[in-house]
């Protein structure tokens, strides 16, 4: 789909169609003629046909418009900021976080708490990492500042639970090791939705 037709925003250069609107009849004879012409025009049947066609479309041509939400989900935009996810390195399966503490520092609502220590190889190891989702405003600075793309915002937007703590531990946010091959790389800020092409609609200027 080319974008040329959307980029032409010069009003007045398109071919407009003027609607042929009748004037309101003033005389009795004019009103009578209007009634007769409206009575015998098949406009009412056009309406019936449209609804019937939509029923056929919905039932037999798979154009049902409903998304049955808890069972079906629409793809979510990559720039959506939902519950955080901690990603793993694809090769080793080790978590990417290097314990630099930048996310903790930049967090404007002070909701990230982390603690690190040196392991036996003198590498930094994250011993404790929690996000207080009662405070988090989902601003996305932590994901933006992370040098290793370790903390990102995932697509998990259903955040109703009995305990806030259900989401907030490091292990809960970390990609499960057996689902490493399903781990989605962060597309980056400004990335478009996977179904962006389908969602493009003509703006009125392009008609």
């Amino acid at each position, binding site marked *: 789909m080319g974008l040329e037709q959307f980029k032409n925003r010069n009003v007045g250069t398109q071919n407009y169609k003027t609607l042929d609107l009748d004037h309101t009849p003033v005389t009795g004879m004019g009103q009578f003629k209007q009634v007769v012409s409206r009575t015998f025009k098949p406009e009412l049947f056009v*309406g*019936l046909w*449209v*609804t*019937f066609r*939509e*029923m056929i479309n919905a039932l037999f041509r798979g154009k*049902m*418009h409903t998304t*049955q939400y808890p069972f079906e989900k629409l793809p979510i935009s990559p720039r959506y900021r939902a519950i955080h996810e901690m990603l793993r390195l694809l090769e080793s399966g080790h978590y990417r976080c290097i314990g630099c503490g930048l996310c903790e520092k930049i967090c404007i609502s002070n909701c990230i708490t982390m603690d690190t220590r040196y392991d036996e190889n003198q590498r930094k190891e994250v011993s404790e990492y929690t996000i207080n989702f009662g405070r988090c405003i989902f601003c996305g600075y932590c994901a933006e500042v992370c040098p290793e793309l370790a903390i990102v915002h995932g697509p998990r937007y259903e955040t109703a639970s009995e305990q806030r703590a259900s989401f907030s531990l490091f292990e809960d946010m970390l990609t499960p090791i057996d689902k490493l091959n399903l781990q989605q790389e962060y597309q980056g800020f400004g990335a478009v939705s996977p179904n962006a092409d389908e969602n493009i609609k003509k703006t009125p200027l392009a008609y």
Partner: protein
Amino acid sequence: MDATHLPEVTAAGVIIKAVLILAVVSAIAGFGTYIERKILAFMQRRYGPQHVGPYGLLQLIADGIKLFTKEDIIPQHANKIIFAVAPVITAATAFIALAAVPVFPDFTIPFIDVYVPSIASDINIGILFVLGMMAAGLYGPLLAGMAQANKWGIIGSARTAIQFLSYEVVTGLSILAPIMMVGSLSFVDFNDYQADGTWLVVYQPVAFILFLIAGFAETNRTPFDLLEHEAEVISGYVTEYSGMRWGLFFIGEYANMITIGVIASVVFLGGYNDFWIIPGWLMIIGKIAFSFFFMLWVRAAWPHVRPDQLMWLCWKVLMPLAVINVVITGIVIMLAQ
């Protein structure tokens, strides 16, 4: 009918048929709400009810439980007796009207050889009785709206009066022309008149269309859905109703839809005569089902009119057309003799 038919079991037969009509029609009326929600949903490319039971079929049981268990509120300043009686008028008259309407061909019950005419009582003023009963049903909304001490109810009942005065003339005049042709007011005679396979709608297309339009007004269906149009008058005459009293109004409305479907089928669309190889009982079920579907279809497609537009339409357009139709029919019948 063949000569071997046995005498009808009179008293018991009538009671059995009355109970059957009551049971079957109220079941269909309940089921009609499900059908309506499904069809309207499909026409808007939605699914409609689908979680209660397979394909949402048990939705009407859920609705029934809800209606029966809701609190029955009678407002403080309402006229309590009239408020309580009004829904019963609507529902009762809708069912009484069905007493004089034949639905199936006469048949003989196998094994016990009982001959059954498929009509509760074949009275010789059938059409007048049915139309009169359906018109009397309008007392339900009228009294309900006035009894409930609510301004929306008052507006609803005023609209009931307007609508009643408008369409009833058209109903009577439009059906007068077929009555002149058949020469009888009994539905059975109408059916037998069309036994040769030529439907009356062929001779009386104008009367058929007028009757359909008036029928929509009679059953408060959408183009003339003035009495309880939510966007304008909250719920009109049912504003203060709740629970099963509210449900009775709608059982009455759906029963009326079925009655209009039966009348249109028997009077204009060939009744329960056999058609080619299709047996008569299947034909009339198909016709009633189509007319029911048509009412839902129209509801999905067309906007509704204002009260003044309804009066304008009925008095200035439909009534003259009906009168002209009656006069022309009379002249043709006179010349044909």
